[in-house]
């Protein structure tokens, strides 16, 4: 075997190994990105459920006001949800401006530092002192 043949074989081996490494790396990245996308969707689902179901203001006639947050419901809120067989914890807060920014919350446990966290803030309405104020509903969610 000449030196040239040895070099060609070596380069071929390096290329094949590189191809395998790239494939494995891409697969790992795909799994990581898919997990983040699932977390993002879970955060979206939590926000939707809070704003159209669990935190909505109900008036004296029993009418539901979707997208309108009743601040009294924030305190007793359970901050764990299950989606697709996975449990997610979350922290929720509501911010609004009335002569300066006010913050209700945060409610729920503190987000862990060693896990990925999904975060979403959407606009909503806050029913405060018989007024409908524009506000922001913020949710941070993570895998339990």
């Amino acid at each position, binding site marked *: 075997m000449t030196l*040239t043949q040895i070099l*060609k074989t070596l*380069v*071929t081996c390096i*290329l094949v190994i*590189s*191809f395998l490494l*790239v*494939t494995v790396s*891409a697969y790992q*990245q*795909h799994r990581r*990105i*898919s997990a*983040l*996308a699932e977390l*993002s*969707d879970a*955060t*979206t689902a939590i*926000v*939707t459920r809070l*704003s159209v179901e669990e935190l909505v203001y109900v008036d004296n006639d029993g009418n539901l*006001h*979707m*997208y*309108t947050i009743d601040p009294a419901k924030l305190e007793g809120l359970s901050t764990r949800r299950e989606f697709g067989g996975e449990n997610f914890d979350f922290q929720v807060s509501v911010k609004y*401006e*009335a002569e300066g920014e006010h913050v209700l919350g945060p409610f729920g446990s503190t987000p862990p530092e060693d896990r990925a966290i999904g975060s*979403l803030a*959407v*606009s*909503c*309405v806050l029913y405060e002192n018989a*007024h*409908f*104020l*524009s*506000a*922001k*509903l913020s949710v941070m969610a993570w895998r339990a």
Partner: protein
Amino acid sequence: MASLNNRGVADVLAMAFMFVILVLAAVFMHSYSLRPLRAATDRQLELKSEHLYKTLELAWVEPYSVSFLRGAAENLLLEQPIVPGPYLRSAMENALEYLHPPEYAVSVSLSYDNASWELSWPRGAGLGLDAEKQFVRRGEVRLTMAGGENIAVPVTVRIFEIAEI
């Protein structure tokens, strides 16, 4: 051809081809893997446009007990709306400045017959009709006029990527 083979050119070409394939495969696989995250981000922005529309529809322009969109519809159709035009614009700009998604602009437009009422934040961002990425929520505000006529005013709330302002 035999002479090329003798010099090993065919092997070098094969290896160069493998290298090109390797680079292309790496680029393709890594860029493709980001698609689910981009789609999830778009779903969140779609949700934000829905929430922004509902907020403008339901939240009051303080100290008036009238919602932002109803106030805009009255400004479009009535000579003497409950919320004065300049005050409504200022209040809605403040609300949009506080509520708009970071790095995105927001526009609100109402139109009826040949008249229209438009507002965008940041100022000068336009309505975003030609924006490459935009999330649109359409609806209508119903007003009952003095004569009992019921008018539906089409409303469009658009969140869009800011280009150059």
